C-alpha cells in the first residue's frame, strides 16, 4: 500500500488579495490521480463572492450544475458557457465566518476527456447556506496545472488554501 494523500501547497493569507493562484506558472505536479482543494475564504465585505479558473483559461469553457439549501428551502441552478466557475452563485463570502469548501478534481491530468470538478461548500451564518456543485471544463483536454481563485473584492487576511494530491496505485 502506498501513502497517497499528500500536501502539494498550503497558504494562509497575511494580506488581503483579490486573487490567489495555486501552481502559478503551471507548476501543479502531474503525478497524482486526483486533486483536492480545501479552502476557507473570508471576504473583504459581506457582499463579495469569488470564482475559479484553471490553467488561466478565460474562454467560455466553464459550466456548472448546483444546488443549495439555506435552512428553509432548497434550490437548484445552472451556468453554461461561462468564463469561470462561480463557486456558490447564491451566496457571498463573509468577513468573519469562513465558508468551508472542498473541491475534487477527478483525473486532472488526463488529455482525452473534459475535466469535471465536484465541490461542497457550507457557511453557517444567518442568510447563508450549504451547497454542492459539479462543474465541467470544456477546453481541449489538457492536464490542470494551475488553479486561480478570484474575488469580486478581496480575500481577507486569514483565508486559507490547501491543495492535496491523491495517487491511485
Amino acid at each position, binding site marked *: *500500500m*502506498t*501513502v*497517497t*494523500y499528500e500536501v502539494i501547497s498550503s497558504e494562509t493569507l497575511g494580506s488581503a488579495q483579490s486573487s490567489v493562484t495555486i501552481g502559478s506558472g503551471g507548476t501543479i505536479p502531474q503525478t497524482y*490521480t*486526483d486533486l483536492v482543494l480545501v479552502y476557507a475564504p473570508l471576504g473583504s465585505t459581506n457582499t463579495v463572492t469569488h470564482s475559479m479558473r484553471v490553467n488561466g483559461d478565460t474562454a467560455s469553457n466553464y*459550466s*456548472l*450544475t*448546483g*444546488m*443549495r*439549501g439555506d435552512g428553509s*428551502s*432548497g*434550490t*437548484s*441552478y*445552472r451556468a*453554461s*458557457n461561462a468564463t469561470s466557475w462561480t463557486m456558490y452563485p447564491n451566496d457571498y463570502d463573509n468577513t468573519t465566518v469562513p465558508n468551508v469548501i472542498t473541491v*475534487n478534481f*477527478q*483525473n486532472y491530468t*488526463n488529455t*482525452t*476527456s*473534459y475535466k*469535471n*470538478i*465536484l465541490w*461542497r461548500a457550507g457557511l453557517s451564518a444567518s442568510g447563508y447556506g450549504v451547497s*454542492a*456543485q*459539479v*462543474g*465541467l471544463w*470544456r477546453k481541449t*483536454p489538457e492536464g490542470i496545472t494551475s488553479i486561480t481563485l478570484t474575488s469580486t473584492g478581496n480575500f481577507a487576511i486569514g483565508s486559507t488554501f490547501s491543495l492535496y494530491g*491523491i*495517487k*491511485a*496505485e
Partner: protein
Amino acid sequence: MLNNISGFLGVGGGIIGDYESIATVTVGSATPYIDFSTIPQTYKHLQIRMNVQMASTADMNMRIGTGGTLDTGSNYYYHALYGSGSGSATSLNSGGQVNFGAYLGYFNSGSSSFAGVVTDILDYTNTNKYKTVRTLEGNDSNGSGFVFLSSSLWSNTGAINTLRVYSKDSINIAANSHFALYGIKG
C-alpha cells in the same frame, strides 16, 4: 461475467500512512460492472473515487458483500437530494428496502464529459451495526446535468470485503472510466 474486471489489491511495500491506495480499475472497454474483492480489513473507512461515463443515461448502484459474496437481497435503503439545474432541489428515497444496492446517483451520458463521484463507506469492518454509504456525485454537460448527495443503508452487520459498482438499469460503464479504492485509517 463474473469478475470481469477486478481491482488489483496492492501487496505490502510502501510507507504506512492514514490514507492508502488499495486498488484501481481503469475500464478498457465497456463493461456492465467493476468489482473490488478481497478488500483488506485493516482500515476504519473506505473511499471510492470515480470518474465515470455511462453508455447511456442511467442510475448507478453498488452492491455490497461480506465473506466474498455480494448481497443481492432486499437489504438496501437510500435517501438522496439532487439538483437538476433549475427549480427546487429534490429529495427522493428508495421507497422501502430494495435489492439493487446503494444509490450512487444518476448519470448522463456524453461523448466527452464524465461524472465525478466520491463515495465513503463508513466503519466497514464493524460487525455490530448496519453500514452506511454516502456519496457526492455530479455530471455536467454545459446546459444539462445533475448533482447528487445520497446516503444508503446496508442492513447487514457483516464486515464488508466485496463491492460491485454497476447500473441496475443494465447500462454499461464506458471505456476510460476510472475507479480507485482507498483505505482510511482510524
